[in-house]
């Protein structure tokens, strides 16, 4: 028993947070450490091993709300109820077939009033698609593939992974194991600073720098997977990428062109992914027709 206090500090820094937590629980349970020691150990370990996966659904929602507000400060919303309903219904059909259909406040889609070609997804399921991008889609399969790619980013929490570890360390230090859900002014100021930093990290990644290439390819893989699961022809994605290859606005290097790997690179990988599938759904003219009707009033 005398060995425990000596051995524990080394264990504390080597083990994962979960292991430390259960270790501390066990020691507290057997009376070898006090309750306050247990809380201190858990709090320290939480700060040491802070990762995006420890961000709760509710916190993801609050990060997403502010990221969405910051995106909407750069791009105006397109106030067209019929088109937004169509985009949301299509988006929801994809969500139902996705890996993470239920999130804190659900998925919500909005068209952005810009001719720039862009699609963005904030954590917490706030997904944006520009008028410019919709204009380049020729059918529902293409639009579905883009929305599925964005849903994929949310499912895999790519936005949250852009948050620097230091912000989470700071936030989790305050959160710790405190019972309070309403914070005092000092704690609130610390959390707000971490929150601002986190928002900056996500927005810079979404709007300026773009995700790591591996996340874009992962979102493409998920787009193919969700397309097939919901019944869309996954060639909607390769058809869209093909359109982008010959797009004259590529040269402007704005929006989507700046933040995504080249369409050629993505195309090659997506084609390989589709070729590996045993069977894929076919396009349906009924869908192309309703797509054309829905986007006809695009101004």
């Amino acid at each position, binding site marked *: 028993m005398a060995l425990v206090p000596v051995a524990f500090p080394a264990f504390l820094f080597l083990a994962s947070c979960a292991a430390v937590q259960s270790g501390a629980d066990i020691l507290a349970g057997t009376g070898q450490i006090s309750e306050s020691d247990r809380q201190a150990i858990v709090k320290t370990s939480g700060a040491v091993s802070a990762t995006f996966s420890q961000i709760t659904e*509710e916190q993801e929602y*609050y990060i997403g709300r502010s990221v*969405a507000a*910051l995106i909407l400060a750069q791009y105006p919303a397109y106030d067209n109820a019929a088109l937004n309903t169509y985009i949301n219904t299509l988006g929801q059909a994809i969500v139902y077939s996705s890996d993470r259909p239920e999130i804190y406040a659900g998925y919500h889609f909005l068209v952005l009033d810009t001719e720039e070609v862009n699609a963005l997804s904030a954590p917490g399921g706030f997904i944006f698609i520009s008028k410019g991008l919709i204009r380049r889609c020729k059918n529902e399969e293409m639009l579905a593939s883009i929305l599925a790619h964005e849903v994929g980013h949310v499912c895999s929490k790519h936005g949250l992974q852009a948050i620097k570890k230091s912000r989470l360390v700071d936030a989790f230090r305050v959160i710790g194991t405190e019972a309070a*859900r309403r914070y005092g002014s000092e704690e609130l100021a610390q*959390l707000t600073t971490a929150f601002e930093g986190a928002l900056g990290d996500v927005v810079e990644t979404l709007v300026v720098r773009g995700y790591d290439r591996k996340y874009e390819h992962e979102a493409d893989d998920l787009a193919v997977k969700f397309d097939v699961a919901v*019944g869309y022809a996954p060639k909607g994605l390769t058809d869209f990428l093909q359109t982008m290859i010959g797009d004259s606005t590529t040269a402007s290097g704005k929006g989507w062109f700046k933040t995504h790997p080249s369409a050629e690179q993505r195309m090659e990988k997506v084609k390989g992914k589709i070729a590996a599938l045993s069977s894929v759904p076919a396009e*349906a003219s009924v869908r192309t027709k309703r797509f054309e009707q829905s986007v006809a009033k695009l101004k």
Partner: protein
Amino acid sequence: MKRPIPLTMTVSLLILIVSLLVAETLTVKVQSTSLRNTPKFYAPAVQSLSAGEKVEKISAQGGWIQVRTSGGITGWVHSSAVEVPKFDLMATNKGLKTQASASEVALAGKGFNKQVEESYRAKHKDLSFAWVDRMLQIKIAAAQVEEFMKKGKLGEFGGGK
């Protein structure tokens, strides 16, 4: 001649069996969800469930979990809507409370919450949340999605696969 099984081993075995049989308690981690009568999003809702509500797992199928509410009503929830406690033999004899201690449930309302958003907004008064709130108001009922899929020959309504 058979040796009798030692008492301690019998007790340990019994504890293990009982802990394996004890129903798993799941906690709703999304703001609200529906308890559905079949494992499908557009299946009729039996009742609604909100964050923090506890349900008991009965069985699982695909991504869906059949559960029983505290009121004794059974139905299906999607696994992404609930917190599934990690199975941990070390913790089972200490109850579910221990298992959930570092979870979504324990952290509910903490960290980046409404209060932090208000504090952030007070510092950035020019940032508008009007369209964010309007986005959240766009709600597509499951029946609408089903109709969309039916008309578009998608999913189980597709004939072209």
